């Protein structure tokens, strides 16, 4: 039983309903059966589970193990003070969990926006009487009464329809109203003209319908379902971080277990080995990584907001930088969404300038038009506004009394009015040429209407195609005076719109935004494919694509029906061939294109503005909504909102996203650089008769304290211009270069200074080789503090070295990142506090150091900078040579 194919009586029978409607008892029963007619949240992973998940990912598990080992050590060896470290690690886990968890509320807000599109009250017929009920109480089988201005509360099959026109924009994106009727329809459900859908608006006429689906079972409910139900996977950055964590964890575990085994082999005691292994593991785990990444993304989102791109999901900031394909709308994004009449065309012989045909063309355009000029400017459909604007600029007089209107709809593609103008009653018609020209039997040439010949028809057709090839939307205009007998009783619409005289054409266009061609070129240089996915006609789309540099002379356009006929594999083949223009696309087509691209392994950004774009926005790696023309639903479903709807803004955001990824790489190198000088003294301590060179609490003070601010400052390094001349990144965040530069090159360089400070302090304090000093000994504390200070000062040099992987400090400007210097100053102040303040000394087992220790370390810091500058110079030379 397909409800659309049934007759009125059969439809009622199939739904166990009748003309008089359901009884109150039956309605109650059905409400119990089908549930309330409302948009509700799709049951997702409960919030508490999502919160708990933050405590069970790989890094968190690693940290839990580290904390457990600390507490275990503290239990058996309380004098080591590892209990404090255990609590500190748990603090890190909590902070990380909270940081991530606070980003989880988007779907709920989207649903709130969707709910606003359903009506509160509706009129239904029950037990033969009309009654107004809350829309949430509508059930399948209810008889709905629909009038102009009503929002449809449920998917329903029309039983009667009188000039009923419905705006299906929330479902199809098509803003022109469509005519509905009550006749059986043998085709597909969604294409059926005898159905109305929940969330859509009745714009004209009236009708009665029987509800066939309510709540989440409606087509509108499916949008809500997809919007809330599509669970986006991990962002590329999250995946990269997960991978990095695994690698680091394995390194830490191997080192920890390896040295434990070695300790056992050389005969050291169990607890000594155990504590040592814990120290190695804690030193290797980058505890500060996640908070630093999150804060860096938050700062990036603030910078994007200043560029008119509002980020709603922090991870989206970096994902933007990794996109390989952008599926962009046309209207408003590539163009200005401001239609203008750019050309008028009259048949040869009609005359030009203030001739009859020209005046008539303007009169039709001005009167057969529902746009209005109010104190607040022009209001109405963009095409009609453009026509009215043009008419008012060229012809002041627009007086006429409207007697009737045959409204525009997407099926008829034309509109007519009957006007009394200067004593004459005229039918004025405008619309698409293919629907207006067949209704014309005459053409205006000079002051009179002459019979329309086949050659003239062909000439008009050719003129129209010429205008369309230039990207213009073409409107055709025609008219006819009504005979006196017709004026007395206006004939039916079909008769009114017949035997018309063709007057002329107007070509309208939405100008391309001036900055877009450059932005498209930037994308192409950056290896990002740009696809235009638009609901507009192929010719218009292609013309705009050519103007912005997306399409060449040979470019083919794929239209909606062609796409429908393709299998998934065929579609992927066509996408691989690089077709850039997709026209006459519905949001469902858009979703299919996005899914196919993702299945090809590409990262996709999609723009959208309509309610029905919400699923595609959610499905994409980055959903980009329009801030000006977008609906609330699209804005809530998106990851990024363009406050100026401008494609160029999105490209600027992509550049920012790439910079953020680069900056995250920089601070990962920076974080890795301290791991080696933390581990190496420990290793020496385990094999040589030395005092403890660094306590675990001091390690934590570096990881989570002193180096956090400079690391964050690396996150705001400006975009290097070369970034947008490279293809999208394909390599991982952690590659050999990052590994080598961080752990080996900078790490070992730092070790030199750190160990020098450690041994110098010991030597100056009178320590002799082989002398075992407990940590309580002031000299042992001073030596450990010297190691701590050494790492801090080497990290100052490292942070400057990490600002660029290629450019010299001089060329990027030593003081061009002021936040970095503020971070360095705070890092030094914090280190001084931990070394010289009694609280710092108590908690972190430090001891005051004389000033010469600081001075001893400065040349080593300078050496790191020099070595790095040398490395960069060699790489630049190699790049220039290669």
């Amino acid at each position, binding site marked *: 039983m397909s409800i659309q194919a049934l007759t009125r009586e059969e439809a009622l029978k*199939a739904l*166990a309903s009748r003309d008089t409607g359901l009884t109150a008892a039956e309605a109650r029963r059905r409400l119990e059966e089908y549930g309330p007619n409302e948009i509700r949240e799709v049951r*997702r992973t409960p919030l508490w589970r999502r919160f708990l998940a933050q405590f069970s990912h790989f890094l968190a598990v690693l940290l839990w193990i580290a904390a457990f080992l600390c507490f275990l050590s503290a239990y058996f060896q309380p004098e080591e003070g590892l209990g404090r470290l255990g609590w500190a690690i748990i603090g890190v886990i909590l902070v990380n969990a909270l940081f991530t968890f606070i980003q989880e509320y988007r779907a709920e807000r989207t649903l709130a926006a969707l709910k606003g599109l359903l009506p509160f009250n509706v009129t239904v017929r029950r037990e033969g009487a009309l009654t107004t009920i809350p829309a949430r109480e509508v059930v399948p089988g209810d008889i709905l009464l629909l009038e102009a201005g009503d929002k449809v509360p449920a998917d329903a099959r029309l039983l009667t329809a009188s000039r009923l026109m419905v705006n299906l924009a929330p479902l199809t994106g098509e803003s022109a109203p469509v005519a509905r009727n009550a006749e059986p329809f043998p085709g597909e459900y969604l294409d059926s003209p005898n159905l109305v859908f929940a969330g859509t608006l009745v714009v004209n006429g009236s009708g009665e319908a029987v509800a066939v689906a309510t709540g989440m079972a409606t087509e509108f409910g499916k949008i809500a379902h997809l919007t809330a139900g599509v669970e986006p996977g991990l962002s590329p950055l999250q*995946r*990269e971080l997960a991978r990095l964590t695994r690698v680091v964890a394995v390194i830490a575990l191997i080192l920890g277990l390896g040295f434990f085994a070695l300790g056992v082999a050389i005969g050291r005691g169990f607890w000594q080995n155990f504590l040592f292994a814990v120290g190695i593991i804690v030193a290797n785990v980058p505890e500060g990584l996640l908070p630093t990444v999150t804060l860096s993304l938050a700062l990036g989102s603030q910078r994007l907001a200043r560029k008119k791109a509002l980020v709603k999901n922090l991870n989206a900031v970096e994902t933007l930088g990794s996109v390989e394909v952008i599926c962009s709308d046309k209207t408003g994004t590539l163009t200005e969404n401001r239609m203008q009449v750019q050309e008028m065309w009259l048949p040869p012989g009609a005359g030009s300038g203030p001739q009859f045909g020209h005046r008539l063309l303007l009169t039709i355009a001005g009167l057969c038009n529902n746009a209005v000029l109010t104190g607040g400017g022009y209001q109405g459909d963009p095409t009609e506004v453009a026509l009215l604007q043009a008419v008012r600029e060229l012809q002041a007089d627009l007086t006429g009394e409207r007697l009737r209107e045959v409204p525009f709809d997407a099926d008829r593609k034309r509109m007519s009015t009957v006007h009394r103008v200067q004593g004459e009653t005229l039918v004025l018609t405008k619309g698409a040429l293919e629907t207006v020209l067949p209704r014309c039997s005459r053409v205006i040439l000079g002051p009179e209407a002459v019979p329309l010949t086949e050659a003239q028809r062909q000439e008009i057709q050719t003129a129209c195609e010429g205008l369309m090839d230039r990207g213009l939307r073409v409107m055709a205009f025609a008219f006819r005076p009504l005979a006196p007998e017709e004026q007395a009783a206006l004939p039916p619409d079909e008769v009114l719109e017949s035997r018309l005289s063709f007057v002329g054409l107007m070509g309208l266009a939405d100008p391309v935004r001036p900055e877009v061609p450059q932005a498209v070129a930037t994308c192409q240089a950056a290896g990002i494919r740009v696809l235009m996915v638009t609901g507009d006609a192929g010719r218009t789309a292609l013309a705009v694509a050519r103007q912005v540099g997306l399409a060449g002379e040979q470019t083919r356009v794929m239209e909606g029906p062609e796409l429908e006929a393709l299998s998934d594999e065929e579609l992927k083949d066509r996408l691989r061939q690089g077709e850039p223009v997709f026209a006459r696309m519905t949001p469902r087509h858009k979703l299919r294109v996005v899914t196919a691209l993702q299945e090809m392994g590409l990262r996709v950004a999609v723009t959208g503005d309509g309610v029905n774009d919400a699923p595609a926005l959610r499905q994409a790696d980055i959903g980009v909504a329009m801030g000006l023309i977008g609906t609330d639903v699209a804005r809530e479903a998106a990851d990024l909102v363009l406050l100026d709807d401008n494609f160029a803004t999105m490209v600027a955001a992509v550049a920012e996203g790439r910079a953020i990824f680069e900056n995250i790489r920089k601070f990962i190198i920076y974080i890795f650089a301290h791991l080696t000088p933390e581990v190496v003294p420990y290793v020496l301590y385990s094999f040589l008769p030395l005092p403890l060179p660094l306590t675990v609490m001091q390690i934590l003070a570096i990881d989570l304290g002193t180096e956090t601010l400079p690391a964050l400052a690396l996150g705001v390094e400006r975009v290097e211009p070369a970034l947008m001349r490279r293809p999208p990144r394909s390599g991982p965040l952690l590659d050999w270069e990052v590994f080598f530069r961080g752990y080996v090159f900078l790490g070992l360089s730092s070790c030199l200074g750190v160990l020098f400070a450690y041994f110098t302090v010991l030597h100056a304090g009178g320590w002799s080789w082989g002398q075992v000093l407990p940590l309580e000994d002031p000299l042992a504390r001073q030596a450990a503090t010297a190691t701590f200070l050494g790492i801090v000062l080497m990290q100052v040099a490292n942070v400057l070295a990490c600002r660029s992987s290629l450019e010299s400090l001089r060329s990027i400007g030593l003081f061009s990142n002021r936040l970095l210097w503020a971070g360095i100053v705070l890092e030094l102040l914090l280190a001084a506090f931990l070394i010289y303040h009694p609280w710092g000394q108590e908690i972190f087992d430090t001891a005051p150091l004389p000033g010469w220790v600081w001075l001893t370390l400065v040349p080593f810091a300078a050496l790191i900078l020099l070595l790095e500058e040398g490395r960069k110079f060699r790489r630049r030379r190699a790049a220039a040579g290669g």
Partner: protein
Amino acid sequence: MYRHILAAINEHSNSEAAARYAVAAAAAAGASLTLAFVAPPGLPLEVVRSVEAALERLFLEASAQKVPVQSLLSTGEPVRQLKHLVREQHVDLAFVATRREDLSRRYFTRTIARRLSLTLPCSVALVRVVHPGRVISRHLLVPLRGTIPHLEERALLVGLLAQAFGARVTLFHAPRRLERFFRGAGEVPVTEREPGVIRRMEEFMTLLARFQVETRQRFRRGRPAAAITTEAAVSRHDLIIMGGSTRGLLASLVSGNPVEEVLRETPCNLIIHLPRGFGV
């Protein structure tokens, strides 16, 4: 092949829509059909009359499709009566509509649908109708997993309904998300990770081939229930046919129950098929 199909009608209107699937299956299988209504004691007379009207409509629809049909109306305890009827009439497959209570109680505990699905001595198709206007289904979604008990019978019901509606069948699987430990960026393809599922899908397609229906395969990552309902909504399927849950109460408590989740969240009509290996 099914020889005798039962459609259990109850006082709710969606059982009438659910019974239309039974009519379609019986017509495609050439089976006889019994429309049965067991009125629980104390049911108001007007409700009994409305069910009688529904039985009459269904009877006429089945007759119009040349299905040998009988209509039975009795009173008593529905589960016991229907069990008796299944035994007495040698029913192979029973279509039972879910009720609201099936959605509100976890793991169907103590619901009529659960009792029927557990105790009827025949295969059961538990039907949830959310869209009574789209019973004729053009796009069927059939979620599959690695182990499919009574594969042939599962394919039989899918094939019969697809044949009856002239529908296209999408075999679907939601693979577990699994990444390579150190090369996390690229996920392990389903063909590599779960070759067993691919084999089962191919077997299923082979079995469907005799019904001459168009089939295709789809994969969507994510939690199984969310992936199934999302796929149904994205690709606008109008009927999901899935197997029953094999998870016990404890496993369901710990890691959820996809079948129950789909039952609650389905965006289109749903049949949960509990085959007993009858009559293939």
